[in-house]
């Protein structure tokens, strides 16, 4: 089969390429970006249509107390829907957003219109499910506004019609210029060190050195890429289940030796599934109590017991390996013994008679020295070597040079 092989090479390359580019490519490409010192900005704006109301345009300008904070509904890693702040760049015509504005102080209320201290007017829509006034101090909903109150309001389910990213006036190579931002422009604020951080247009202040250019999308999609990776590897979990089920099923059906073990296995799987389902119940319920029992008394208990088996193995392994056969073995033994004794109370017990003056020869201090100095040297040496090995191996696999599958 030739074509799957070619396809495989291609997808391997592309999958790796994303993560490499994400690492290498800056948020905006240096060649295509403008760099200068900002003077003034004209604010970005967007037009939305809310249910039961006419389209309205909002400016995203600083110093405006009614400047809308744009939120979109998104699922977090736990699957819950949360309102997360977003930027104008990430919403486009058609997006459904929630806008939070305020807090503002109410000056007067005139029917459905609220006049704020700063002179702006707000149209209240009584009875509309998509509009709500809040008290920012308590977070509770307020039915009607009265003069002197400090309030905040939220407009849900607003549909974005158009967006205007705004423009910026800057000094570029000693000349003044006005730059109109594109819909996907990224504004980076450069700092004395490093590549800079992305900021919003209204966060630009006179004197800031900014770099403006097209979005390279890699940084924006980092979360989605991680999610993709996680999902696709988790999907392979079923193969393990299937393989184990096959092996145990065959043993059970054909009554091979140890078939009773397989019977226990299937029983245990059912128990495990039940415990897993119970885990998501609220604390206090029976299912949850059962799940906690299985997790704490069986899974946790066995896990830590298996962990502790290693202490025994360690003892026999140490007994076997630490023999003064060669100089190297002796070195390994001595350093292990010092570290072992130095970490227990016996260490200082045996050597503290030397007094403070020779405290650097106390066993705990020698042990600490071994850990801090030669051990760090060895560790770094190994790490650098491993890094190089990992780079080379990764390169071979990425470019499908490795004949792993023997083709």
């Amino acid at each position, binding site marked *: 089969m030739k074509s799957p092989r070619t396809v495989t090479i291609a997808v391997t390359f592309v999958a790796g390429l994303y993560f490499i580019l994400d690492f290498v490519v800056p948020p905006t490409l240096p060649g295509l970006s403008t760099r200068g010192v900002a003077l003034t900005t004209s604010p970005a704006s967007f037009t939305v249509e809310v249910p039961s109301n006419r389209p309205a345009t909002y400016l995203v300008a600083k110093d405006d107390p009614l400047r809308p904070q744009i939120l979109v509904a998104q699922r977090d*890693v*736990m699957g819950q829907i*949360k309102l997360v702040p977003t930027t104008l760049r990430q919403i486009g015509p058609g997006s459904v957003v929630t806008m939070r504005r305020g807090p503002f102080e109410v000056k007067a209320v005139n029917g459905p219109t609220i006049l704020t201290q700063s002179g702006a007017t707000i149209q209240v829509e009584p009875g509309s499910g998509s509009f709500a006034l809040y008290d920012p101090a308590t*977070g509770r909903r307020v039915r009607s506004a009265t003069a002197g109150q400090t309030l905040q309001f939220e407009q849900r389910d607003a549909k974005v019609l158009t967006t205007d990213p705004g423009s910026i006036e800057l000094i570029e190579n000693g000349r003044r210029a006005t730059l109109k931002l594109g819909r996907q422009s990224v504004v980076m604020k450069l700092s004395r060190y490093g590549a800079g951080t992305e900021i919003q247009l209204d966060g630009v202040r006179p004197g800031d050195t900014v770099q403006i250019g097209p979005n390279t999308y890699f940084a924006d999609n980092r*979360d989605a890429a991680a999610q993709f990776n996680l999902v696709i590897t988790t999907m392979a979990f079923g193969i393990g289940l299937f393989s184990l089920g096959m092996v145990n099923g065959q043993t059970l059906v054909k009554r091979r030796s140890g078939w009773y073990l397989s019977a226990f296995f299937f029983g245990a799987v059912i128990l495990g599934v039940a415990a897993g389902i119970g*885990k998501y119940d609220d*604390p206090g319920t029976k299912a949850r109590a059962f799940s*906690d029992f299985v*997790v*704490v008394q069986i899974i*946790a*208990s066995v*896990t*830590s017991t298996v*962990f*502790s088996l290693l*202490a*025994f193995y*360690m*003892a*026999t392994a*140490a*007994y*076997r390996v*630490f*023999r*003064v*056969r060669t100089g190297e073995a002796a070195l390994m*033994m001595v350093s292990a*013994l010092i570290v*072992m*004794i130095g*970490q*227990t*109370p*016996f*260490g*200082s*017990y045996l050597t*503290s008679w030397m007094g403070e003056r020779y405290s650097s020869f*106390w066993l*705990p201090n020698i042990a*600490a020295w071994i*850990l*801090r100095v030669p*051990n*760090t040297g060895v*560790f*770094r040496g190994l790490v650098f070597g491993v890094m190089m090995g990992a780079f080379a191996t990764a390169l071979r696999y990425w470019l499908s040079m490795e004949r792993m599958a023997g083709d």
Partner: protein
Amino acid sequence: MTDRTLKSLARLEVIPRRTIYLFLFVACAIPFLVPIRLPLHIWKETRSAFDVTSKCPPGKVIAISSSWVSGSQGENWPQYEAVVAHCMLSNIPFVVFAVDADPMAPQMAEIINQREAKRYGKVYGRDWVNLGLTRGAPLTMGAIGRSVKTVFQTDFQHTSTEDYAKLPLMKQVRTVRDFYCLWAVDYQPDLNWVVFLDPTGNLPVVFACAGIVSPTFYSYVSSGQLKGLMVGTRGAAEYEELLRDTYGKRFDDRDLRGNKLIVPLAFGHLVIIAFIVAGNIGMAARRRQKAAEDNR
């Protein structure tokens, strides 16, 4: 040396594994039944961890990232216990959270919190808050630093973190600026805490880790990225010793796990060392025996 002593000594070279297992088991069990005390040497990493925590000014909280579960409770339990006891003894409020951990992690931490709170008369919500579990390190770490309540909208019992009647402590916990320092207690704490939680690098970060991974962290302590290090049970026992020195009577009347475990630990090490020495004596004896036979 006679041939017979040599011969019996040479048997030390091949001690059956079950004998070693038995000796180890018994040696570790004895100190549990017969109380023994040994003096402790306090390593400078532990001392600096203690000093950092002690200096917490009023109005600040200590953040503890407790991401361990029963698998590593042999070391992390005493460590976490010592840190919590320290916070409660010196009336420092703290918040606990777990990032990218097993779902059991908040419960494990809460068992210890409740036990210590009973002892020192502390109240949940006022003296500590357990914020529960979240995922997505290292990006989440930065998000916690920017706004604690955005990441943790509820605590581990689903109480809203803005419900100040139930959780008055959350009134003063907003961003990383409200933290005095971060303790990360885990089998292998994530080094990303140093970089992501407070990008300015002003927040002291202290790790409590398992002994096995500790060699990787010493270099970060010497470079100042970590302000202290609590290594395994030994670190926990030393920390308790420091608590005993500082708080005297209020702490003195009991043993936490660190002090309980450090003596059996020393005995276990001693058994292993004894067997290593025995093995070498056996090897030397056999060599000599062989040389004597060859000469004959």
